[in-house]
């Protein structure tokens, strides 16, 4: 339930919804809890909400462990 994962922002749709890429699938996520998000940013997503921004290298390091490389 609680594992938040880093995902890449593909597009910012309107004030509060981003579109993020998750392993090839695009999902809508609320950005009500963060601000100044742009296309190409990485965000930490928990239960459908972005809770923090991350850099690409930080995100990739987490993701490589999750995918078991």
């Amino acid at each position: 339930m609680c594992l938040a994962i880093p995902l890449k922002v593909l597009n910012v749709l309107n004030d509060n919804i981003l579109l993020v890429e998750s392993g090839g699938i695009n999902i809508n996520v609320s950005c009500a809890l963060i601000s100044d998000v742009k296309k190409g940013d990485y965000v930490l997503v928990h239960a459908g909400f972005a809770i923090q921004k991350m850099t690409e290298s930080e995100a990739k390091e987490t993701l490589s462990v999750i995918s078991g490389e």
Partner: protein
Amino acid sequence: MLDVKNKIIPLLQNIEKITPDDFTFMEVCGTHTMSIARYGLRSLLPKRMRIISGPGCPVCVSSSKDIRTAIQIAKLPNTIVATFGDMLRVPCEGESLQEHKNVKVIYSPMESLVMAEKNRDKEVVLLGVGFETTSPLTAVVIKEAEKRGLNNFFVLCMHKLIPQAMELIMQSKNINLNGFLLPGHVSAITGSRYFDFISKFDFCGVVTGFEPVNIVSSISMLVTNHVNSKYGVFNNYEPVVNDAGNLTAQGLVKDVYEPCDSDWRGIGKIKASGLKIKRAYSRFDATNKFNIKMEKVDDPKGCRCGDILKGNALPTECMHYGRSCTPSNPIGPCMVSTEGTCAAFYKYVED
């Protein structure tokens, strides 16, 4: 994989070198429970080091009374109860939410709002379960329900706060604790300063993420600081956690909730350890809407979830564990929840 090995081996060597006899620390996050078990970290660490799982799984600490309230609401004819999947199978007096057709699993609390909009003839009740990482999400949803003028949306607020449980444990003489692994995503929201109170008990705490190298490196920091009598909070999850945390989320929480006393399964009432929806938003509070009379609910005989949650017992010390209580047939919440201590042991720890 080789990269992980190269990073982890020197950390393990340091830990082996400096860990004193009987060093004990506690983690208070269900995802840490699961990560430690999943990566087999106990087997890599010295035998004289004890890792205790504390009350960090929000499903596991939800009181039987709260679960029964949720079930009673699910039995009403016109309701939809929206919940995270973990809550579905928690047994309560021989039944669980799973058996009721009015119950729907959601991944995001926002989905419950969509349900309320699409089903105007139904009363949609979101089960607000979780610690500081999740309560802001429920707050966003309540504010959005207000903005959209919904009159068929409610929240059964069962959110809890972890510091009060930690203080209780630190004050208890039952376990000889030396420090804490501090929850990474709670800290992303609250800021690492949120845990500063541990230094008044001469405790060390390390804010930690969820990958094995990070967890082992945090354990190494924990032992090093303890051995050098350096108390307080250290942040080992800097990409995600800073001192202050997510101010937007914190503002929303202050706006929507106020602290209240809360019942923790197996522990009892802990003062100011829960969140209650403020009067200004009381029309969304399910306890106002559904006047369900509650009596005390007894936990199943012999179930040691309470002791396990406080770190006083291991799952293997419960008479039901692995016998009458298994993931396919759970007796208590520690076995049901994917982050429960018993579930983690069953899945990953060798007998």
